[in-house]
């Protein structure tokens, strides 16, 4: 579909520009306010024993944008995801999605409200076909009620439309070839695609992707990038956790940096990555203070190299 592709490319530009334009007025400070937030969180704290895994004073996510959540290992990114989607319960904290309080909701209710997540370790349903995986995602299926399930005439039409939508997504994510294969037979990258497609079956307003690139080969990585950008074009809000800085730079409109459970920096990707607080977050503050300006520069170079190396390691 070359015509289609063209249309999306131009549109892509528009949506991306719109997101960047909207965020240009946002404050570049941790917990800064956004012009049109879809998600607003306050005082979210989660402790494991003596460790404060997440300690977020305030966070806003701009509607229709792609926000990257980055930070060193153990910064609390995944815990933060788990809390916001109801998979973990916070010690304190409230957050609103589209203005509705959802901080007390069970995970399946959060998903039904339109906030759907994926997982760091892909959760493909191995002994079900790819198609069945996708069909499972569809919301409000009549045949999912126990009594209706034994009366096929009640749900057959709906099943038909669900299958059509699933087939469209399979087409879009290049999974048509494996439509009837067991999901357990897919490669790591295909599983990531499947999980993303399955999340879209729910018809979410906001998708939370936990390390969508982990374990994906470089070629598929490129196409995943495009799929993530594509989500924004359909009007969705995307939040994703990622270690690969190239991906973050390529894809995101806004970056939130976490370290030791707290948000230490926020802003557009280029600006944020140059910030001292971000480098400190990754390497520790005052790791060794430079004596001269030349030394400082040498250190900066070393740091950048290390960052690049780290992102490479994340790739493998």
């Amino acid at each position, binding site marked *: 579909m070359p015509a289609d592709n063209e249309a999306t490319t131009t549109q892509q530009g528009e949506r991306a520009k719109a997101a960047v334009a909207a965020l240009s007025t946002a404050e570049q400070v941790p917990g800064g306010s956004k012009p049109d937030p879809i998600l607003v969180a306050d005082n979210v704290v989660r402790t494991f024993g003596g460790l404060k895994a997440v300690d977020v004073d305030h966070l806003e996510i701009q509607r229709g944008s792609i926000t990257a959540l980055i930070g060193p290992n153990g910064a609390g990114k995944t815990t933060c995801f788990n809390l916001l989607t109801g998979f973990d319960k916070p010690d304190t904290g409230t957050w609103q999605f589209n203005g509705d309080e959802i901080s007390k909701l069970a995970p399946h209710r959060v998903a039904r409200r339109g906030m*759907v997540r994926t997982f760091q370790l892909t*959760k493909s349903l191995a002994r079900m076909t790819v198609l069945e995986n996708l069909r*499972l995602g569809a919301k409000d299926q009549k045949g*999912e009620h126990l009594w209706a*399930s034994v009366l096929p005439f009640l749900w057959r039409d709906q099943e038909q439309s669900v299958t059509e939508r699933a087939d469209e997504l399979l087409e879009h994510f290049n999974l048509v070839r494996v439509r009837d294969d067991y999901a357990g*037979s897919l490669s790591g990258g295909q599983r990531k695609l499947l999980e993303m497609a399955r*999340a879209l079956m729910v018809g979410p307003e906001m998708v939370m992707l936990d390390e969508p690139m982990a374990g994906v080969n470089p070629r598929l990585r490129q196409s995943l990038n495009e799929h993530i950008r594509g989500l924004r074009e359909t009007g969705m809000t995307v939040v994703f956790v990622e270690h690969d800085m190239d991906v973050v730079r390529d894809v995101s409109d806004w970056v939130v940096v976490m370290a030791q459970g707290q948000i230490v920096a926020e802003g557009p990707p280029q600006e944020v990555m140059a910030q001292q607080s971000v480098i400190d977050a990754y390497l520790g503050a005052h790791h060794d203070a430079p004596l001269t300006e030349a030394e400082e520069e040498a250190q900066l170079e070393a740091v950048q190299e290390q960052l690049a190396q780290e992102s490479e390691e994340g790739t493998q």
Partner: protein
Amino acid sequence: MDWGSIISQTLSALIGWEVVAYSLAAMGLNIHFGYTGLLNFGQAGFMAVGAYGVAMGISTFGLSLGMAVLFAIAFTILLALLLGIPTLRLRADYLAIVTIATGEILRLFFRSATLSEWTGGSDGLQGNPLFTQQFKNLNPYGGPLDVGPIFLTQHILWVITVGWVLVALGILVTWLLMRSPWGRVIKGIREDEEAVRSLGKNVFAYKMQSLIIGGLFGAAAGVIIALAASSANPDNFAPQYTFFAYTVLLLGGAARVFGPVVGAVIFVGALVFVDAILKGAMSDGLIPTWVMDGDQVGQVRFILIGLVLMLLMIFRPQGIFGDKKELQLDAR
């Protein structure tokens, strides 16, 4: 050796009440374990509740047969709820621990001397004419079945008629459920419940429904046992019967609609056949007494069957109907 008698016994057993009971019990486990991934090790408890629900309903509380069946169903649902509410939120292995304990608690409860006025204690509920009389009165058969090598008494014939109708219904219901979107959610929960939760499904409610449906199959098995034996005896619901039912399930192939029935036919058929052969060989003096004596036939047949089962699991781990490819899938 009397081959005629051995064949007759085996063939009669293939359609007998034990096959029916094991089929039903394993069909319940198929719903629990095969499709939903719930490790229920307390199926014997559900069977006991079914058997005692009907037996106590009639003998102790003086209900009619129909009311007693409803009483047993209500009792089973109550048990599933009691069992499920605290445990279904936990990881799978906790359910296994709790269910095996619950099965034993129930057996010891029905067995206890204190309650023997109501439950019959360790002797079970028997001898009371009320218990099976109503069921016997409904028997449409005029006499026993004696066709070729197959012989079944009038009572057993009626029990297994009802039993096989239940099995057929169970197969139909399982098939209908598992091809529906409901079944898709259930299978999704088996694969990864977090993923299903993330797609907006109320996993707890689905697991509870599964526990109740599978439990009702188990209860039906218990009712068949009680009717066939004309007694509800606590020792018929010892934990090993749960494991026999699991054996039957894995033998036929888990998550296959016909798996439990075929597994039950093979399991019971093999037990009866080996038993008859061993007894025949003993009476002919073919087995020297230093190998085994006549009292050990019951144990030795289980040793032999166990050996065959081990070989089967090694060379055909997916069971009769299973798909080996499915088993080898990397369940990441």
